């Protein structure tokens, strides 16, 4: 599946065109993979803005106190789930309403593992990997039944939503002392707490990543890694096939691609990213409750991604950060009305900017810049 796609590299002055072909070394080759038909941000202007944004994010902790930085780290925690949903919904075209099931499973998984085995020898990092693996496993099982049953779009949403709601109901009734896994009490509706934060083993004393500056940098780095990694993956043949399936599953199948397998892989990737958010959330606040899998919690990622623009990972990321910031600001100043406002934003976005507000803005800006600067 090459499509009009791979020629997208030569549209506009991209990174590789800036260097003569002879001098193109391995680094430039890798950088060139960051651009392609499936992501709209490209060219010098975009990357300059990107580097400036990263620099601003990097020096930001110098201007505010530790608590605020920890709070900003909280925003970053959610971006992984949002980008994962963007892959499933925007790129693969099958909308999952239940990303919170993976979020919750991984969060609880991290809690159970670390409460039982502690944080010594960097175990929290292993627990992170294992918990994300658990979420991915759930996605494999669920995705197998859905995609290999050739369930259409609507039903995927319903089944995933049902899974997260039942999971929430199940965890909410685990209040009794008989509901414990090893040393970890599940604690019903009040949820689990007291698990250790992520701990990096370091000579001369472990580094405990409490909600503070160090955690902020780790999350920022992780977010950039996932963002750039997704850009490469989505512009690689895998991403092109996903988009081909979204646009026309029958045609993709006729061209010889196993639609079910690609959809399953996209779903597992999204599930694992939601799981990563779940682990980071649990480690950030050292608690996890069943309400993180409730119907409201399940709606929020859908709102972020719809607002940002599901068909572009950059738009998803920006939209998510804006919406989480707005949501927190609203909960502080208008408490109860925050959810109403979120609902209104969702309905208005769907009605008037179905592509997503951030994505529409990005398209508008690049259209504005084109006649002036000659680059998109």
């Amino acid at each position: 599946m090459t499509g009009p796609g791979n020629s997208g590299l030569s549209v506009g002055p991209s990174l590789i065109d800036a260097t003569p072909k002879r001098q193109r070394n391995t680094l430039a080759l890798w950088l060139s993979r960051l651009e392609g038909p499936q992501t709209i941000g490209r060219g010098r202007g975009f990357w300059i803005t990107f580097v400036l944004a990263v620099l601003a994010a990097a020096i930001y902790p110098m201007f505010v106190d530790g608590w605020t930085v920890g709070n900003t780290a909280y925003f970053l925690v959610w971006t992984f789930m949002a980008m994962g949903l963007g892959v499933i919904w925007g790129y693969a075209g099958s909308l999952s309403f239940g990303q919170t099931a993976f979020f919750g499973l991984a969060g609880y998984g991290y809690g159970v593992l670390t409460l039982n085995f502690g944080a010594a020898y960097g175990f929290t990092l292993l627990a992170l990997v294992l918990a994300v693996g658990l979420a991915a496993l759930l996605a494999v099982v669920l995705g197998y039944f859905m995609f290999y049953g050739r369930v259409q779009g609507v039903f995927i949403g319903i089944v995933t939503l049902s899974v997260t709601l039942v999971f929430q109901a199940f965890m909410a009734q685990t209040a009794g002392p008989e509901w414990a896994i090893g040393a970890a009490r599940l604690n019903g509706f009040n949820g689990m707490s007291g698990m250790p934060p992520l701990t990096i083993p370091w000579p001369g004393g472990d580094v405990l990543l409490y909600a503070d500056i160090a955690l902020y940098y780790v999350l920022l780095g992780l977010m950039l890694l996932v963002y750039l990694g997704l850009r490469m993956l989505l512009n690689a043949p895998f991403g092109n096939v996903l988009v081909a399936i979204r646009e026309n599953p029958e045609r993709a199948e006729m061209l010889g691609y196993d639609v079910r397998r690609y959809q399953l892989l996209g779903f597992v990737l999204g599930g694992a990213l939601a799981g990563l958010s779940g682990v980071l959330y649990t480690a950030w606040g050292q608690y996890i409750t069943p309400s993180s899998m409730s119907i409201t919690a399940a709606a929020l990622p859908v709102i972020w991604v719809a607002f940002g623009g599901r068909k572009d990972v950059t738009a998803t990321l920006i939209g998510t950060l804006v919406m989480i910031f707005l949501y927190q600001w609203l909960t502080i100043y208008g408490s109860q009305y925050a959810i109403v406002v979120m609902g209104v934003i969702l309905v208005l976005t769907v009605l008037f900017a179905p592509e997503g507000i951030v994505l529409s803005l990005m398209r508008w800006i690049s259209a504005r810049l084109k006649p002036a600067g000659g680059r998109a």
Partner: protein
Amino acid sequence: MLSTLFSFFYQFGDAFAFLVIASMGLAIIFGMMGVINLAHGEFIMCGAYTTVSLAQLGLPLPLAIIGGAAVAGLIGMLLEVTIIRHLYHRPLDSIVATWGLSMIATQGVLIVLGSTMQGVGTPLGSFTVGGFSYSTYRMVLMGIAVLLLVGLYLLFYHTRAGVIARATIQLPRMARATGVDTGRVYTLTFGLGAALAGLAGGLYAPTMTLVPTMGATFMVESFVTVVIGGGDIFLGAAPAAAILAVIRSGMTAWQGQLFGQIGLLITVIIVIRVLPGGLSGWILGGRK
């Protein structure tokens, strides 16, 4: 022996009635328009709140329930005209929009009316079979579930409105060419679905506590019924409700309410693997 049999019949009938009543509104909207109405639970909540308010004003319960259904139906038609109508060509977006509406409704009710509302007691008392006591009202609900299915069957297959509605489902363009106002059919169908959801809320309002999030308790059951049933109400949702009722009453009797729900969920996940078109797709496919 007879009392055990009756007990099983009662459990099954109760589960069947709940699944049929809770899912009819969702099934009609889905079957007609392919839209899964995620605000279904909120229409149920609206029906329940209206019913209880009317009953507390002194209206007899049956009238109050009809009032609840009517209010939910009117709100449904209003939302169809203002929002849902613009999204028919984008099914996923229409679902997302109904989700937004659901959030607004739940939280709005919480803000305006508070976290709980004084309910009305379950009417009609109880009767005893073989030493166990059963609620008469729940027996009435079973009867209503059957009547509802019969009534909808008559509506769709033995009235002119039903013919027009089915024509609109099967070939919307052809229906339009023969002079059917399909837009109005959709509005009325959405209203009917919402009214049935309101009816479900009204009927179950006396048996449960009224909280703004009560819609969510109906969600999983009604989704599962519609997913297993597929697009057709009579060949899909009704038999699906019967099968699921056996599973739910069995699991509930064995391990409790929550495991009844888990049983339903596992059933649905297995069924979509085996019968992706749902029961009605399988039955109709077999017939063709």
